[in-house]
C-alpha cells in the first residue's frame, strides 16, 4: 500500500538525487555550497553526510570550471550532477554549456556521450533583483544538444530529476525558487521516472487551452478556477519538458478548444512562448478562433522593489485576464 505521503518541491528533488546516487556509484554532485552546506536552497540537504565528500563536492565559485568538470567527468565515464546556484549564472558558464557540452557529441561525430545534468533555480518574486531572478530557459532551448526540464509539482520534480540523471544527454534541470516549500499531492517513496519530452494535462477543459510550465503552470490552475466561476472551462497543459517540446499534446488540445494562451514567467519578447505559439499556428491554424495569446513578463529586467516586481511577474489574475481577452466576444457583451 502506497503511503499518501507528501514532500515539498525541494524535498522531492533531494530524494531523487539521493536515490540516483544510491543506485549508481558513477553519480556525484558538484557545485557551490552543495556539499557541507547542502545547497543554499537546501536542494542537497543530507547528501554529503550520506555519501561523503568524494561524491558531494564543494567547488570554488567558478561556473565555467564547474560545468567543465562535469563535462570532462561525463565524457570520461561518470554521470555528474553539477549545480549552478542561480539560473542567471548559466550566462557565466555559457561557453561550457552551449559550445562544449551541448555540441561535443555532434562535433565528435556521435562518438562522445555526455550524460551530464545541470541543476539550477530560476524565477522571480523574492526581491532578489535583476541578476538573481531571471527565467532563461529559452536561451538553451535554442541550442541543439541540450534538453531543458522545468517541473511544476513535487511528483514531477522527483520523476523528472531521475529521468534527467539517467538520460545520456546534457540536461538543464530548473527548479522555481518560489516553489521550493510547496506541497502538492503525494510523492511515492520508490524510485520512479517521469519521461522527458511528455507534457501533462493538469486540468481538462473545453473552452480554452492554457500552456505553461514551472510556477506559472501552478498559477494557471488557479486561473482556471477563477475562470470556471465565469463559466469558462480552461484546459491546462503543463509542458514539464520544454526541449524536446511535446507539441502534439498542445495541438491535440487546441484542436478541441480552438483558443490558446501560453503563459510563462520569462520575458514575453523572445520567450519560449513564442516558439510554442509559432508551432501551434503551424499545426493548428485552421482550428484557431483567436490569435495565440501570451501572458508573460514585460520587456525589462526584473525590478527589485516588491511594488514593481508584483506587476512584473504573471500570476493567476493576469493569466485569467489574458484568457478572457482571448475569449472575448464583444457582440455578446463578453
Amino acid at each position, binding site marked *: 500500500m502506497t503511503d499518501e505521503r507528501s514532500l515539498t518541491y525541494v524535498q522531492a528533488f533531494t530524494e531523487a538525487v539521493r536515490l540516483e546516487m544510491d543506485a549508481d556509484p558513477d553519480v556525484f554532485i558538484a557545485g557551490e555550497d552543495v556539499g557541507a552546506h547542502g545547497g543554499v536552497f537546501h536542494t542537497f540537504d543530507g547528501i554529503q553526510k550520506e555519501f561523503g565528500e568524494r561524491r558531494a563536492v564543494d567547488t570554488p565559485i567558478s561556473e565555467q570550471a564547474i560545468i567543465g568538470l562535469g563535462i570532462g567527468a561525463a565524457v570520461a565515464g561518470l554521470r555528474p550532477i553539477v549545480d549552478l546556484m542561480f539560473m542567471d549564472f548559466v550566462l557565466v558558464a555559457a561557453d561550457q554549456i552551449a559550445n562544449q557540452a551541448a555540441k561535443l557529441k555532434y562535433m565528435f561525430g556521435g562518438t562522445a556521450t555526455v550524460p551530464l545534468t545541470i541543476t539550477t533555480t530560476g524565477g522571480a518574486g523574492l526581491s532578489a533583483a535583476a541578476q538573481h531572478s531571471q527565467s532563461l530557459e529559452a536561451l538553451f532551448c535554442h541550442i541543439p544538444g541540450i534538453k531543458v526540464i522545468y517541473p511544476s509539482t513535487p511528483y514531477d520534480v522527483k520523476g523528472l530529476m531521475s529521468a534527467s540523471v539517467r538520460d545520456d544527454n546534457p540536461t538543464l534541470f530548473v527548479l522555481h525558487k518560489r516553489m521550493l516549500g510547496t506541497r502538492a499531492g503525494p510523492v511515492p517513496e520508490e524510485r520512479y521516472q517521469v519521461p522527458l519530452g511528455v507534457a501533462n494535462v493538469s486540468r481538462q477543459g473545453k473552452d480554452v487551452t492554457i500552456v505553461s510550465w514551472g510556477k506559472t503552470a501552478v498559477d494557471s490552475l488557479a486561473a482556471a478556477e477563477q475562470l470556471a466561476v465565469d463559466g469558462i472551462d480552461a484546459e491546462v497543459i503543463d509542458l514539464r519538458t520544454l526541449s524536446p517540446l511535446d507539441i502534439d499534446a498542445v495541438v491535440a488540445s487546441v484542436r478541441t478548444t*480552438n483558443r490558446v494562451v501560453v503563459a510563462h514567467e520569462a520575458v514575453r519578447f523572445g520567450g519560449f512562448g513564442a516558439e510554442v505559439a509559432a508551432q501551434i499556428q503551424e499545426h493548428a*491554424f*485552421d*482550428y*484557431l*478562433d*483567436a490569435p495565440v495569446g501570451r501572458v508573460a513578463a514585460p520587456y525589462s529586467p526584473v525590478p527589485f522593489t516588491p511594488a514593481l516586481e508584483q506587476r512584473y511577474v504573471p500570476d493567476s489574475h493576469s493569466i485569467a485576464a489574458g484568457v478572457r481577452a482571448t475569449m*472575448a*466576444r*464583444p*457582440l*455578446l457583451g*463578453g
Partner: protein
Amino acid sequence: MPKLGLTMEEATIIEWLVADGSTVEADQPIVLIETDKTESEVGSPGGGRLHQIGRPGDVFPCGQRIALLLAEGERPPTSTSTAPTTASTPAAAPRSPAAPPSAAGTPTIGGRILASPNARRVAAERGVRLSTVRGSGPGGRIVSEDVPEVPFVGAADRTSEIPPLATFAARTLADLLGVDLTEVSVDPIDQRVTREGVAAYVRSLLQQLASPPRSSPGALVASMPLLQQPTEVIKLSGMRGTIARRMHASLQETAQLTLTMDADMTAVLADRAERSAGGTTAPSITDYVVAATARALAMNPRLNAQVTEAGINLLPNVHVGLAVAVDDGLLVPVVRDAAQRRLADLAAETKRLADGARRGQLSPADLEGGTFSVSSLGTFGVDMFTPVINPPNAGILGVGRLRDDVVVADGAVTSVKRLTLSLTWDHRVVDGVPAADFCRTIVDLLAAPARLDSRDER
C-alpha cells in the same frame, strides 16, 4: 427562379398556381412568371410541400430561391428574410457617421470578411456562407461559435447591406454633395473611402460634364452570353490585350475618319532601279512612303500633334512608327527623326527595326515616342483600308498595293505604277482640307524622290 432562356436574367412572379403549403408533384406547374419577353409556367423540380417565399410582383434574378419543397413533417426555417431585388435598387445610402462597422453585420476589411481560421473551416464544413453570418469576436470577427449548424435558408447576403467603409469626413462630404459612396474608389492604403476619394470622384464627374459628350467609355468587352461552348479561348492579355485595348480606345476617344488618294510611283521605281544598279540595296517602297510622310509632317506640323486636355499640342520632332506584323500580333517600332534621315539611312533603320521586331529583340526605346504611323497592307493585296490611329497620334497613313494602272492624258492612254494611300486623321486636330493637302504633299514627294534624300525642307 429558373433560367428559361439564353438571355433571361430575371423574372417577375405573376401568381402562384397552387396554394402555399399544398403538396405538389414533380413537374406540376406551380407558378406563373413573366420575363421581358413572355409569360411562362414553371413546373416543380420535385415532390413535396410547397413553401412559398416570393410574392406576386416580386422580381427574382435567375438562380435565387423563390420557394421551398419541404418533406413530410419538416418545418420551414424561421428566418424569413427574402431580399428579392427590385429593379435597380440603389446600394445602401451613406449611413450616419456614428455607426461603427462592427455593429452593422459582417465586418470587412478591404472587402475581405473578418473571420477566424476556425470559423472559415467550420463554415466550409457546414456549407454556410460567411457573408450571411454576424461576428461576435473582437472587431466583429466571426468566430466558429457564430457559424450556424446549417445554413440559413434564403438568408440575405449581408454584403449588400453593409455600408461601404468610409471615414467620417468622407461620409459628410458625400452627404453634402449627394454622392453614392459605393461609386467611390476605396483608398488602397487606408482600405476605405476617404474624403479625398470623394473629392476626386466629384472632380472627374465635373470633367466629364465639361468635355465634349462622348458615349460612355464602356468596357473593352461587351457582356453577352456565349453563343456556343468555345473550342478555344484566347486571352486578351499581353500583346493581344494591348492591341485590343489601344485600338478600341483609339476609336472611342478620337474623331477619326479616312480619305484615300492615289500616288504615282513611277519615279520611285526608277530611283530604286538606279540605286540597285549602283550596287547598293535599294530602299523598299514603304521606305519611300515613310520618308515622304516624315518630310510632309515636317512641312505640315499640324499633323505631327497630340491632343491633351490643354488642347492640340504641336510636337517639334517627327518620329514615324512603322507597323510590323509579328507572330499573332503587331508591333509599331519607331524611326526617330525620320525627316532628317537620308533615304539609305532610313531604309537601314526600318530594316533594323523590322528584323528586331520579328525576333522580339527591340528595346522599349525602339517602341515608344512615335508621333505618326505608317502601315502597309499592300503586300497582302489590299488597295485601301481604314487604318486606326495609334494613340496618341493625330493620324496614320495606310499604304496599299503597288499596281498597274492606266491614265488618260491628252487623249493618250499610258500605264503607270500606282498605289493608294489611305490617310486616317483625327478631325479634332485638322479638318478635311488640310488633311487632303497633307496627303497631297506626300503624293508630290513620292513623284520627286530626289527630294527625299536631302535634309528636310522646313
